């Protein structure tokens, strides 16, 4: 295969992988800290894309302003969903999972009724292409790559160094011990929902100009997020990054060489991980 072509496929894989990273990291954050599989996460992503679409196309807001607004809107929505629906089932494992599924269905179903099933698209924000090592790359994709890297770096630094980020990790490790140290578990969870939802909103805003926007995005996104977090390790942010990138590259190269059957590769990887390293690439025993 010639080198230029390789670069092209590689960059496509990188972009696709970062997409998965953006979606999966928020999902993994929630699981790591709250022990909740937030099935509504994909729907938050879908709503983020719709919010950006409405703000840009209908209200004529600047794209970056629309992105920030979408993040805020989705973060608020995340907090509300936590307060009213997740908190009452906080320490119940299966009921909390079921309520998350119910919320996902509700949001997905309502979105279908309100927005209709037709694909919407946002007019391109960045035009032009640049040449890297002979391969042609659109500016749009480059922007997504840069933004995703910035967001992930910010998230990692936040969790590692900030006071509230450390509180999150403490709650993740031992909820009761953290509470004894004076960390408000409930406020930590609320913050965690807000950050995770804002990330989903950002992912929606970033990807809206590249793909079509429709109400079915949510289910698709949550499926990918599940595959990524199992490969990377449930609840681990580095795991979500590694898993997302790996899936992106596998799918990009798979699509080029194997065609449609690639969709199944992610699942094959999941089964391999479960057989040989059940805690995931970056999970702890």
């Amino acid at each position, binding site marked *: 295969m010639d080198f230029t072509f390789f670069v092209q496929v590689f960059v496509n894989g990188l972009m696709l992988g970062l997409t998965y990273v953006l979606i999966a990291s928020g999902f993994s954050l929630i699981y790591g800290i709250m022990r909740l599989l937030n099935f509504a996460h994909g729907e938050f992503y879908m709503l983020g894309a719709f919010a950006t679409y409405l703000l840009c196309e209908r209200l004529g807001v600047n794209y970056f302003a629309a992105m920030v607004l979408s993040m805020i809107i989705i973060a608020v929505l995340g907090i509300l969903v936590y307060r009213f629906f997740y908190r009452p089932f906080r320490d119940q494992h299966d*009921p909390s999972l079921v309520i998350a*599924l119910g919320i996902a*269905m*509700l949001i997905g179903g309502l979105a279908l009724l309100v927005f209709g099933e037709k694909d919407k698209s946002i007019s391109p924000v960045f035009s032009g292409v640049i040449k890297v090592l002979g391969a042609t790359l659109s500016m749009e994709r480059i922007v997504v790559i840069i933004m995703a890297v910035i967001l992930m770096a910010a998230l990692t630094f936040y969790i590692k160094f900030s006071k509230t980020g450390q509180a999150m990790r403490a709650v993740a490790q031992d909820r009761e011990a953290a509470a004894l140290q004076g960390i408000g578990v409930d406020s930590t969870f609320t913050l965690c929902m807000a950050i995770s939802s804002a990330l989903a909103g950002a992912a929606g805003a970033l990807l809206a100009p590249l793909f079509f926007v429709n109400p079915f995005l949510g289910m698709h996104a949550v499926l990918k997020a599940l595959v990524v977090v199992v490969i990377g390790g449930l609840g681990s942010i580095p795991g979500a990054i590694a898993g997302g990138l790996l899936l992106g590259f596998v799918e990009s190269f798979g699509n080029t060489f194997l065609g449609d059957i690639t969709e199944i590769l992610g699942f094959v990887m999941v089964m391999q991980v479960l057989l040989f390293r059940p805690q995931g690439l970056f999970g702890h025993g």
Partner: protein
Amino acid sequence: MAKRRAGHFIVLLAAVVFPAVSQDPYLLNLLIMTGIWTTSVWGVRLIMSTGQLTLGHAAYMAVGAYASTLLVMKAGLSFWLAFPLSGLISAFVALLIGYPTLRIKGVYFSIITFAFAEIIRLIIVNWPSLLGGYGGIPNIPAPQPLFSIRFTSRIPFYYLILAVSFITYLVMVRMEKSRIGTIFSSIRESDTLAESIGINIMKYKVIAFGIGCFFAGLSGSFYAHYFNFTSPEFFTIWQSIYCLIFVLVGGAGSALGPFLGSFFLTLIPEFLRVAREYEPVVYAIILILVMFLLPGGLITLPARLRGQKKTH
């Protein structure tokens, strides 16, 4: 106890004599759909009785539907042979998935069943030459006549699914009361404790999953031959989630719960006259309301109304 028996007897009797009262094809169809769902959903409850939440049950219905279709249309088998075989094939697929997945404690099982359901759909969609792709497989023959009963109207189908779901029910109740049922609930209560007294928890989780999917396979096979058509659209992730909702809305604590949930949730969209697109929203609202107001499901409603707190 005797009162409960009598209640079951009345439900069964009502179901048996129903076609004598009304032969309205629309109503019969709804009841047949209830039977199809109930049979499958009892499997979900069985899997739940070992503490596992399956999110991909419709995939095993799909396996049953397609296995049965291929056995009848390509291999020329009789429906009466293909029907039990499709259950066994579903159970076999479940064992393949269950073995690596159920080894690991925690939410992995739910995640994998969810993802695998999508894989089954993708395989169907991407294999049009054998499985018909998006378009599905039309002209699936109805079952061959059985003792001169010909499957040309809805009534024989009605009695067939009634028999199948009644037998399923008996199997479920029998299992629950036997040793294996006790083992299942001991695993659900505390798998670590069950393991410590020498129970091979993985073996029993896999058994429950296999049997649960066996009934999903039967239900899928019936579905295909009843509608003479099968398509990946019937077995989406939504259908899998519906299976779970039917159990929880009916009440997982009682063997009648799945029936009640399937019955209520099959009929309610019809009586509300809601369009198909509203269905997920209606189901989601009902699910959320039940989770908040009636955590034991509809089956606990009478006790709740009498003001007793029922615990299981």
